[in-house]
């Protein structure tokens, strides 16, 4: 019997410093069979163990067709991620996963996609943006709305420029606080929603970021006629097991780690916005 709690060893192949506090680790399983068998979809996550520090959930950000490695982009927020920031090529971590349900990429085929993200990096959404961009002909217009607290926080700036240069890809940036030379807007990312010319009935929306930002975005989207089943978002909760067992991540009857982290708004409409639920 497989033990779903038992990590498998993976080796760091590359380390990329994305910003002072954000870094990407490219890794592969030591067991080549395990690496070959590893399949995931954008929005799914792994539980990553650093020996001596502990285990944390981190989303997988590379393309699912990359079969020889997988990438985790990590922001230093606590003890374990701080420890992981010191990892170098050749070092090892433990991996369990992939876990959860990712973005509805099949449902998005042939539709326009509005992607709204707030906060630093927001790895879960970047993974799906890359996925959509790489398969550009399968999807309609892409609207990418990225908000950051401070304009200096934006990582992957060149990537946004590249995306913006593609046909029918619309990139709008917003910063609460902007320094000189910022070309985006100043203000909240959710305010950008009104500026996008959406084809309402053929659009699917994907949100990622702090819950208050997503709630504001959902309210805006519904007010312009987007229906509940067109709204998808990635939730964050205390996740320790990844398999819907330890109980911490529950929202109503849903386990975020297993039934999410990506949810359709219609699944959680009763609970979103209930403070402390």
């Amino acid at each position, binding site marked *: *019997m*497989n*033990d*779903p*709690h*038992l*990590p*498998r*060893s993976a080796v760091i192949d590359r380390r990329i410093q994305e910003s002072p506090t954000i870094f990407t680790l490219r890794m592969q399983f030591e067991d080549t069979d395990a690496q070959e068998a590893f399949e995931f979809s954008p929005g799914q996550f792994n539980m990553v*163990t650093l*020996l*001596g*520090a*502990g*285990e944390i959930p981190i989303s997988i950000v590379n393309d699912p067709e990359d079969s020889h490695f997988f990438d985790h982009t990590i922001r230093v*927020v*606590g003890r374990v991620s701080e420890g992981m920031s010191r990892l170098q090529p050749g070092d*090892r971590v*433990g991996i369990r996963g992939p876990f959860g349900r990712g973005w509805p990429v099949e449902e998005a085929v042939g539709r326009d996609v509005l992607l709204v993200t707030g906060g630093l990096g927001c790895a879960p959404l970047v993974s799906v943006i890359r996925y959509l961009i790489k398969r550009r002909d399968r999807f309609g217009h892409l609207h990418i709305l990225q908000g950051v607290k401070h304009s200096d926080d934006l990582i992957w700036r060149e990537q946004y420029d590249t995306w913006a240069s593609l046909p029918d890809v619309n990139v709008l940036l917003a910063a609460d606080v902007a320094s000189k030379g910022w070309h985006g807007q100043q203000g909240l990312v959710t305010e950008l929603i009104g500026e996008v010319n959406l084809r309402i009935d053929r659009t699917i929306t994907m949100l990622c970021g702090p819950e208050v930002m997503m709630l504001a975005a959902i309210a805006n989207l519904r007010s312009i006629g987007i229906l509940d089943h067109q709204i998808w978002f990635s939730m*964050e*909760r*205390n996740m*320790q*097991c990844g*398999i*819907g*067992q*330890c*109980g*911490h991540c*529950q929202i*109503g*009857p849903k386990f975020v780690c*297993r039934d999410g982290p990506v949810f359709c708004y219609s699944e959680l409409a*009763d*609970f979103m916005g*209930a*403070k*402390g*639920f």
Partner: protein
Amino acid sequence: MILTCSEEAVNLQDSTNESRQPQFLPRTRFQELFEVLKKTGYQILGPVERDGGIGYLKIDSMEQLQPGLTNEQQPGRYRLHHGDGVRLFDWNHGPQGLKPLCFAPQEILWKEQREPVGFQTHLPESIPTAVLGVRACDLAALAIQDKHFLHSDAPDPHYRQRREQLLLIGVDCAYSAETCFCASTGDGPSVKRGFDIGMSELDDGFLLWSGTPKGGAIVEQLSLAIAEESQLNSMLQQTKQAADAQLRTLPQADDLLRLYKRLEHIHWRDVANRCLSCGNCTAVCPTCFCYDVHHEVSLDGASAQNIRQWDSCFSASHSSMGGFKVRGEILQRYRQWLTHKLAGWQEQQGRIGCTGCGRCITWCPVGIDLTKETKNILWEASIDE
């Protein structure tokens, strides 16, 4: 489904006629059951008085059971009483059911070492174990835990290792404690399913019937006579009396789903003003499954292990995300517990997560009664509708 008392009796009648085929074990021969179990290779856990409560401890002989032992349970109160009766199972339950026997309060999940680097699963050692005197509410609760830990996409080998070793000897409750409401949840007071051997205690002995081939093989070795009609009637009568004596009830499962529409109800504040957020209710609940995982490192840093231990949605860290607590307030934690137990479980498992044992009422230091709180939240609100 919620059974009224008369339906309860009908159901029991059916199960007696169809599946219960009791044989009679005279009280003077009860020790033979112990001998057969031991000969078959089981260690025996039986109900023994401990720290003012009753726990399932290792025993070898019926002499270690205490005749005349009864319990008094009220909101926030548990007392054992020692009478001069002959019966061994005239109490209801202690603070723990079967949960700790399968889902360990604390256990190592895996170990890890630096040189050579690797992770090794750590499975518990377990031996065949017969548990004597398991209550209907706890059998139902174990079925819920089985579903959570075993019948999922990721079955738990640690739980399974212990679970597979159990032989469960269930016993009908001839009396109900004041806090019991198993008739209302449809789980008791007579054992319904999940046992290997069923048992009902009468003054002069025990009715035994098999629930599984494994249990049947044990009963067969005792070479007992078929129970007489009068004995069957006594059995039915006392479990019916136990059911009739229960005063507490829970609303219907469908009604309980409406708790999700009452998340902002004013009564949550009323409960929160009394709740100490101590977590006693989750610790004694036979279905609560939350656990915390922590990483423990050896002093020399050469090895580490991941350990899980029971957690509670009443703990401050339960909803913690990097310092931010989703449920920082007691109100939010009680609401999480009650809505999950009575509503969330229905989608997760197809039934409520409560089997009517009433432990959360008994062991709550301030005597909060979930049956009352639930009705206040559902019924007061329905007046406003």
